[in-house]
C-alpha cells in the first residue's frame, strides 16, 4: 500500500509530466520557427527535415536587413508607436470623463466598446473608398489615423476601468486645495493610474504591431508594415522560408519582453478588463 505522502508525490509527478507534455506541444511551432530561421537553405530544403540546425547561422537575418526590408520593421514600429501615443492620450482623457462624470452613460461606453467588435473588413472598406478619394492610401496621416481609431475603443474601455479603481477622495481634496481640473488630471489621476496606463499602452502597441488586415489594404509601398511584408512572402509554391522565418522572429521577439513585463496584467488586458 502507498502512504498518503507517496500517493501525493505520484500525483504531482503525473501532473508535472502532463504539464511538460502540453508545454512542449504548444511551444513546438515556435521552436520550429526559430530553428528554421537559423538554418542554411540546404538545411531548410533537405528531406527528411532536420529537427535542429547544424550550426547557428544568421544569414537569413542579414538578408532581411540588407534588401531594404528593414524599413518595414521601422514602419511597424513608427505606426504602432505613434498611434499608441495618440490613442493613449485621447483615450485616457475620454475615459476619465466617462468614469468620473458618467458622460453619455452606459450607452456611450457600450457603443465605444462595440466599435472594437465589428469585423474590420466591413469597416475598412468604406474607409478605403474615402482614402482613395482623399489620396490618403499609403500615407502617414492615413495609416496613423486608422490605427489610432482602431486602438481608441480599447484604450477608453481599459482606462475607464483603471480610473474607476482609483479612490475619488484624492481628486476631491486636490480640488479643494485649489487645483484646476486639468491639474487634478495631470497631478493626481495620471500618476495614480500609471500601472494601468503602462499595461494598456503596451497592449495597444502589441495590437498595432501585430495588425495585418488594415495595413494590407491601405498601404502599398512606402508604409508597408512587417506583417504585410511577411504575408506577401507566403505563396503556395515558392516561399522563401529563410526570409519568412527570420522576419517572423523579428516580429515575435519583442513580444517575449511584453509577456515578461505584463505577467500580472495579462489576464485583464486580453479580457477587455473583465477579469483581473
Amino acid at each position, binding site marked *: 500500500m502507498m502512504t498518503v505522502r507517496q500517493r501525493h508525490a505520484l500525483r504531482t509527478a503525473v501532473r508535472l509530466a502532463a504539464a511538460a507534455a502540453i508545454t512542449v506541444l*504548444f511551444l513546438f*511551432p515556435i521552436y520550429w520557427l526559430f530553428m528554421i530561421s537559423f538554418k542554411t537553405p540546404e538545411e531548410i530544403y533537405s528531406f527528411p527535415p532536420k529537427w535542429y540546425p547544424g550550426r547557428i547561422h544568421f544569414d537569413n537575418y542579414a538578408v532581411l536587413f540588407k534588401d531594404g526590408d528593414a524599413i518595414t520593421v521601422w514602419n511597424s514600429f513608427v505606426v504602432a508607436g505613434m498611434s499608441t501615443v495618440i490613442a493613449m492620450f485621447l483615450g485616457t482623457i475620454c475615459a476619465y470623463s466617462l468614469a468620473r462624470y458618467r458622460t453619455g452613460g452606459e450607452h456611450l461606453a457600450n457603443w465605444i466598446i462595440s466599435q472594437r467588435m465589428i469585423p474590420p473588413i466591413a469597416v475598412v472598406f468604406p474607409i478605403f*473608398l474615402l482614402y482613395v478619394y482623399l489620396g490618403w492610401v499609403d500615407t502617414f496621416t492615413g495609416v496613423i489615423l486608422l490605427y489610432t481609431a482602431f486602438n481608441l475603443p480599447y484604450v477608453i474601455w481599459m482606462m475607464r476601468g483603471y480610473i474607476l479603481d482609483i479612490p475619488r477622495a484624492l481628486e476631491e481634496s486636490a480640488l479643494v486645495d485649489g487645483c484646476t*481640473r486639468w491639474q487634478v488630471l495631470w497631478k493626481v489621476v495620471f500618476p495614480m493610474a500609471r500601472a494601468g496606463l503602462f499595461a494598456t499602452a503596451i497592449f495597444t502597441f502589441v495590437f498595432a504591431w501585430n495588425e495585418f*488586415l488594415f495595413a494590407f489594404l491601405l498601404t502599398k509601398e512606402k508604409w508597408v508594415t512587417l506583417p504585410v511584408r511577411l504575408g506577401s512572402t507566403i505563396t503556395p509554391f515558392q516561399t522563401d522560408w529563410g526570409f519568412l522565418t527570420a522576419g517572423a522572429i523579428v516580429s515575435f521577439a519583442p513580444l*517575449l519582453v511584453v509577456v515578461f513585463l505584463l505577467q500580472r496584467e495579462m489576464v485583464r488586458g486580453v479580457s477587455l478588463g*473583465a*477579469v483581473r
Partner: protein
Amino acid sequence: MTSLSATSRASFGERNFKYLLIGPAIFVLLLIGIFPLVYLLLVSFQGITMTETSADFIGFANYAQLFEDTRLWEALLHTVIFTVIALPLELLLGLAMAQLFLEKLPGRQIFVALLVLPVVVSPIVSGATWSLMFNHRFGPINQIIGWIWREEVTLLWTISPHLVYPAILAAEVWQWTPFMFLLLLAALANVDKSQLEAAAIDGAGWWRTFFKIVLPAIWPVMAIAILIRGLDLFRLFDIVWALTKGGPGTMTETISIFTYIKGFQQFETSYTAAVAFLVIILLSVVVMLALKKVELSR
C-alpha cells in the same frame, strides 16, 4: 452630481470640462466609424463596379443580389463552421489545462508564462508558422505521421479538400486555447474554497461539484471569453489567408475573405458596400445584445 462638478463661478472650460475631454476621441471615432458608414450606405444603392463608374442610384438591386449569391452564404457557412468547431474545442482544452494548473505545481509560473506565448504572436505569423509545420515535404507534421504509420506520407494539408479544415482549425486552436486557459485559470482560482470543502464533506463527486459549484462561479468569465473569441472567429482572416487564401476553390473562404475578394480584387464596389453594410448591421445587433447579457462593465 458630486462635488467634482459643483464649483461656483466656473469658466466655460470648467463647466464643459467633461465634454472637452471626450471631444477629440469621439471626433476620431465618428470620423472613422460613422462617416464611412453613411458613405457605405450611399454607395450600396449605386451600381459602381470596375467597369461601371456612373454613380446613378439603382435602388435595392445590390441587396436583392445578396440573397441569390450562393458564394456569400457559403462564406457565411464556412465562418460558422470554423466558429462552432474551434470555440468549444478551445473552451474545453483551455478548461482542462486550467484545471491541471490550478493546484500547486513546481515551476507553475514558468509553465503558464510559456503557454501564454501563442496568444501574443501576430495571427499572420502564426498562419505562416503552421504553413511550415504542414508543408507536405519539409514540414514536421507529415514526418511524425510517417513515423507512426511506419511509411512515408505526403499529405497535402493546405491543398487537399479533406485536410484544409483540420489544418486551419489546428492553427486557430493552437493560437487561442491559451487565451481560454489564461482566463479560466484566473476564474477557477477565484472560486470560493469553503464551498468546495463543504461539497467534499457532503460527499459530492467531482462532476457534481463541478456542475453545481464551479461552473456557476466561473460562468461570468466564461461568457466573456466565449463572446470575445466568438466575435474574433467571425472576423477570421489572417490565419486562413496565410494557409489557404480561401482555397481550394472557395472551400475555406470566410466572410472576411469573401468581402476582401469582392471589394479589393474584383472591384465590385457597390455590391461589396451592401455586403459590408449587412455584416456591420448584423454584428452591431449581436454585440449590443451580448453586451446586455454579459457583464463586461461594472
